């Protein structure tokens, strides 16, 4: 026999179940990515990384997890406006990612004003340098690390390289890449015989390749990324440059670039990469298995770093709750087992110290399976000392 009180509880429970009222709170992670525009391909892959991290975690601090994508449209101004809008409307606090450095810098300012947490993977040194702020963390190695880790190994392996030609996208990321390359080349006594700038909307690179051919360098150093880099390499090989000089793409998408180009084109070309799926680290093996199970595919760089950044955010929330001040304090100085091996977040500038890979495209005959497109030549950590970054966390 039910008592009056029990009947009320039972009725209320039944009402909640039938009306679909959620009993658990929900935590929203805002995925800042370009899912339209010139870098839409990157953003669509990145979304998968966030989904994987959410799927793997299930709940954080007892809350159900939800992803909302903020489409940057590959445009820093639009990205900042959209982020500001969700902060104002939904009191959004937790942001992940960006495709372009200019976007990361713009979004970082908005999130900092709102007192949230923002973990991104963009390259410009300023993100954890002169334009750093207390809300912004960066997982990827910055341009300094990418250039030094990849170019140093290529120069060491090819002592006959005496001249270099660069192709650079004209914006903050490209400028930072070029600046770091110039410093390193000067240190090594290697001559930069020319540089071609191009816009972010470029798809025809034959004019720049003609300039590079005429300069006859020993190394063609590509400082662009994504589909810009794919087109550059494809057209450079069309023009027979692979037979005349070494080619290094410093900031590749790893397996995506290698798959798109195919072994016929990528054989013998060097690719710098933030991530490589063959990494033996246990956290990576777990991630690769999850990706293959959920999407039936081997993960690429956009997926990998959005996964790792989301995982960092969710693990922190799980540990200390949703107060951004506590999350920040928890992340600063944190060492953890990441997808590239041992990783550590520097407290002074919020830069994650992680490995950067140099790959060399394999010939089809040397591949063990469809994903075995490159050999890992080196795995290095290169970061400016915190005293030299110019970062003051305000």
């Amino acid at each position, binding site marked *: 026999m039910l008592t009056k009180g029990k009947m009320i509880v039972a009725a209320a429970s039944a009402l909640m179940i039938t009306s679909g009222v959620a009993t658990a709170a929900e935590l929203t992670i805002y995925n800042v990515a370009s899912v339209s*525009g*010139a870098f*839409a*391909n990157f953003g*669509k*892959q990145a979304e998968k990384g966030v989904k994987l991290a959410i799927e793997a975690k299930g709940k954080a601090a007892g809350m159900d997890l939800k992803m909302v994508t903020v489409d940057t449209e590959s445009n820093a101004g639009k990205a900042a406006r959209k982020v500001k809008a969700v902060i104002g409307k939904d009191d959004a606090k937790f942001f992940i990612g960006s495709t372009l450095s200019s976007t990361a810098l713009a979004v970082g300012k908005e999130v900092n004003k709102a007192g949230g947490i923002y973990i991104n993977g963009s390259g410009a040194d300023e993100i954890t340098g002169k334009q750093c702020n207390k809300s912004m963390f960066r997982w990827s190695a910055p341009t300094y690390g990418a250039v030094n880790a990849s170019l140093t190994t290529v120069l060491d392996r090819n002592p006959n390289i005496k001249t270099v030609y660069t192709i650079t996208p*004209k914006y903050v990321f490209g400028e930072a890449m070029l600046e770091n390359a110039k410093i390193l080349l000067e240190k090594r006594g290697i001559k930069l015989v020319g540089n*071609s*700038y*191009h*816009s972010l*909307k*470029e*798809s*025809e690179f*034959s*004019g*720049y390749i*003609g*300039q590079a*051919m*005429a300069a006859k360098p020993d190394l063609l150093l590509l400082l662009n990324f994504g*589909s810009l880099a*794919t*087109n550059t390499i*494809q*057209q450079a090989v*069309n*023009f*027979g440059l692979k037979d005349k000089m070494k080619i290094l793409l410093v900031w590749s998408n790893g397996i*995506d670039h290698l*798959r*798109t*180009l*195919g072994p*016929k*084109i990528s054989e013998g070309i060097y690719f710098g990469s933030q991530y490589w799926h063959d990494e033996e680290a246990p956290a990576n093996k777990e991630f690769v298995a999850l990706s293959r199970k959920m999407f039936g595919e081997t993960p*690429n760089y956009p997926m990998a770093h959005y996964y790792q950044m989301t995982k960092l955010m969710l693990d922190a929330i799980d540990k200390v709750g949703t107060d951004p001040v506590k999350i920040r304090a928890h992340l600063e100085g944190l060492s953890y087992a990441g997808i590239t091996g041992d990783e550590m977040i520097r407290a002074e500038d919020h830069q994650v110290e992680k490995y950067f890979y140099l790959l060399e495209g394999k010939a089809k005959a040397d591949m063990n399976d469809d994903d075995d497109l490159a050999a890992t030549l080196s795995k290095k950590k290169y970061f400016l000392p915190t005293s030299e970054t110019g970062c003051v966390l305000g």
Partner: protein
Amino acid sequence: MRVRGSFLMSLYLFQTLNGLGLGLIYFLMGLGLTIIFGMMNFVNFAHGVFYAAGAFICYQFIAWTGMFWVGLFAGPIVVGLLALILERFLIRRLYASDHAVQILVTIGLMLILRESILLIWGTVPKNVSPPEILSGVLLIGDFAYPKYRLFIIGVTIVASLGVWLLLERTRFGMTVRAGSENPIMVSMLGVNTSKLFAATFALGVTLAGLAGGLMAPIRGASAFMGAEALGIAFVVVVIGGMGSFVGALAGGLIVGLVQSFTSGFWPEGTNVMIYSVMALIIMLRPNGLFGRS
């Protein structure tokens, strides 16, 4: 001094040949658009996505058969057949509509087709290799130019001549031109204008598919490649004049040469120069170089 002179000579020769090659590709992209607009007074904002579809179908047939030539042939044919189906069930309902309606519907069509490409082939761009015989470069002294780009120039010239002969020297072309001037009169003379317009639309779209297939070994196949192609095609058509075959040729060559030479001395300003040239031509000749008022 002589070395510097030879270097510049080689560079100018390269930029000129490259500009002509690019210009002919842009001509092919603009030609389909200008035929559809000029003959049918129809504004097709889905033209770029047909270009992308041509590249993907080319890729797919090569993946299935391992033969480049099959892919290059299948790309425009399949895209042309798709155009016939779309014309039958959607496009022909818009001929009598305002241009604004045509633009809105074809933008919608473009989005549907682009998302379909993403669903079928995914977000990662696909690579297409040219056949062995067209791989590598043709060397003349210090001067090198890819064999495949020379092949594109040849194919484009042949295809353009074919289209010109079809439109200017055949009964079909004569009827299409007459239909564009006065469709009611042509219809009263016993010509089936529905079929005529369907064939014209399919021809224009087939050319976009051919351009996509030809460009795949140079720029790969990407779901988003159509937007840029559409922009360039419109610039070509605006410079040359809406509906003009010769205008599309002139527009394509101007855009190709401006792009090639600008990349030599002001690489980051290539798009600015292309659009500046277009603006200048519109100011001097509002209907384009060969456009009808």
